[in-house]
């Protein structure tokens, strides 16, 4: 599946989003959609500025110089194409009020101007906790959330009336907010998570019926969810954390999934992964999850929108999760084979990292 690719440690691999500020006249700022490619110092990248119709492109060559500092942006709504040789080309939309602390890379353009890239991609690790059967930690710099998930399965549940299904496992989800006790909002999001996860957990496999799969998700960092606020901004992070924790606990699953959050501005621009503060200014917000086989597992939309808008959002979300849409200029080099799915790849790479850590003797022998 993934052959010929040099393996990179997760600290070198930058998984998804990035934004750029170039002090040169031609390239000011850009924000890219998700892409899974490694960016290393002295690696060359190209920017192309796209003025909407896809024709008018202006190429700027840049070179990764060093890890740098933050950048904020002033312009919005411009379409950008970002291209790193040997990787996916992605269309990018500038993102307003991005203010995240993450990995940064500074580029020098052809015109000797300095470009700062903010590399923002989810990072995760498996099994950070020792006592739990499975656990994962997840950081999403785009939204600023840090989560810790733990799974215990199979466990004996207290004999409760609603927890005794004779033929399958009972899935329980607990969400613990960082600064307060769990309230009605957490009950609601727990219900959604439970119904999504129960569809992929094979609760009838050996050893699971009449037992429990208990998933505990703690919000360690990031903005608090206020009373009455939707949990939409947090849903993809919660879903990814619980999936990775389930994988780490080796709970049998029928398939995996990936989730993303998209916002639609009042002028109809679709923006991936808005932060909690940005989300409030959006006309509508959509959290979608797709299974590894392309099924729509979850949709949570709120705000004012028309159905056609949602269809566009769905298409974009599927592209982010699965990379089904090949970009128009055909510049996509699928170095990683048919499975060049950005967010899906993120799950896979996290698992691969852990497998390589656990079985170096096995892999080295091969």
């Amino acid at each position, binding site marked *: 599946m993934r052959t010929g690719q040099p393996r990179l440690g997760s600290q070198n691999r930058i998984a998804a989003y990035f934004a750029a500020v170039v002090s040169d006249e031609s390239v000011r700022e850009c924000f890219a959609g998700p892409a899974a490619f490694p960016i290393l110092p002295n690696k060359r990248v190209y920017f192309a500025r796209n003025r909407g119709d896809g024709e008018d492109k202006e190429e700027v060559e840049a070179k990764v110089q060093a890890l740098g500092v933050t950048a904020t942006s002033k312009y919005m709504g411009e379409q950008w194409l970002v291209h790193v040789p040997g990787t996916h080309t992605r269309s990018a939309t500038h993102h307003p009020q991005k203010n995240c602390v993450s990995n940064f890379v500074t580029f020098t353009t052809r015109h000797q101007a300095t470009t700062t890239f903010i590399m923002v991609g989810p990072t995760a690790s498996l099994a950070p906790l020792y006592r739990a059967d499975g656990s994962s930690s997840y950081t999403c710099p785009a939204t600023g959330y840090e989560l810790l998930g733990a799974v215990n399965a199979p466990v004996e549940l207290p004999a409760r009336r609603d927890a005794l299904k004779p033929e399958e496992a009972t899935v329980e989800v607990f969400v613990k907010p960082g600064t307060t006790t769990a309230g009605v909002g957490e009950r609601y999001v727990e219900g959604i998570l439970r119904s999504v996860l129960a569809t992929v957990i094979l609760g009838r496999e050996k050893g699971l019926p009449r037992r429990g799969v208990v998933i505990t998700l703690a919000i360690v960092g990031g903005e608090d969810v206020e009373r009455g606020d939707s949990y939409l901004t947090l849903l993809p992070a919660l879903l990814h954390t619980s999936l990775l924790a389930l994988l780490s606990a080796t709970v049998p699953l029928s398939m995996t999934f990936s989730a993303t959050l998209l916002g639609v501005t009042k002028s109809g621009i679709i923006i991936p992964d808005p932060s909690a503060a940005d989300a409030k200014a959006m006309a509508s917000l959509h959290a979608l999850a797709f299974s590894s086989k392309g099924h729509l597992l979850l949709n949570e939309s709120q705000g004012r929108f028309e159905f056609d808008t949602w269809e566009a959002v769905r298409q974009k979300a599927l592209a982010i999760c699965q990379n089904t849409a090949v970009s128009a200029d055909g510049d996509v080099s699928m170095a990683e084979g048919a499975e060049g799915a950005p967010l899906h790849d993120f799950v896979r790479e996290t698992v691969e990292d*852990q497998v390589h850590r656990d079985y170096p003797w096995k892999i080295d022998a091969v």
Partner: protein
Amino acid sequence: MTTPLVLLPGEEVPSDHLPPTKNNNPLKLGPGLRLLSQPSTSAAAGHVLTATQAGLLTTDAKRNTVSLLSFSNRRYLPTTNDLIIAQIHHSSADYFHCMVTPHTAHALLGQLSFEGATKKTRPMLKQGELVYARVLSVGIGAGAEVELTCVNPATGKAEPGGLGPLVGGMVFDVSTGMAARLIRASSASPDQTDAVEGLVVLSELDKKLESVGGFEIAVGRNGKVWVDCSNAGDSAIQATVAIGRCLQQTDEGNLSTSEQKKLVSRILREMKIG
């Protein structure tokens, strides 16, 4: 050999990764894999193997098995026929109540489930003593009891050898993945010269400790290793601790074969043995 293949749940095992099928020797599936049939409407009818867990696909052409190696630090779940090291918690009229894993219900070990045990000759095990036992049954559903035995019920013999109370020695905790690896390595043919499962730590220790009298080891699938060097005389305790440390550090560091060799000589030097 093919490149290492990491599978995620729901992904199919490519047919070129399977060992060649022999008619009279059916393929055996390890954990984490299941056989699914294609829906009847689909054009390519037939059976496919899919993963239900995330892990590294491994095949053994000799034994005609295919299995998925999952993450190694998982909790031990009793499975029938596993060899484990259990600690006696208390005893009742018919059973010894044993601890297999912490914070779980006790497993039951019949007072007479030992080689040659009768009402009069049964071992009188005290709290805290260890037994090397086999999982007889795990029961079904919530509240099911795990039953252990130290004897093959069919033959009345302690099969394989060594089942029964473990006297002396020390127990070390390792990950369940490491325990499974040690068992696989020990069941490989002894004349094999190169490292089995990437493990040379035991054969290295064997060579180095032969002079002081050798050692005895029992590995339980529940992540416990019992080590005994009572033949080593004065340096028995040092040698026991040294073996335990070697195993634990190999496990924690996921050491390569050369690192294992270095580790063994370093630890033995530190402990002034051999």
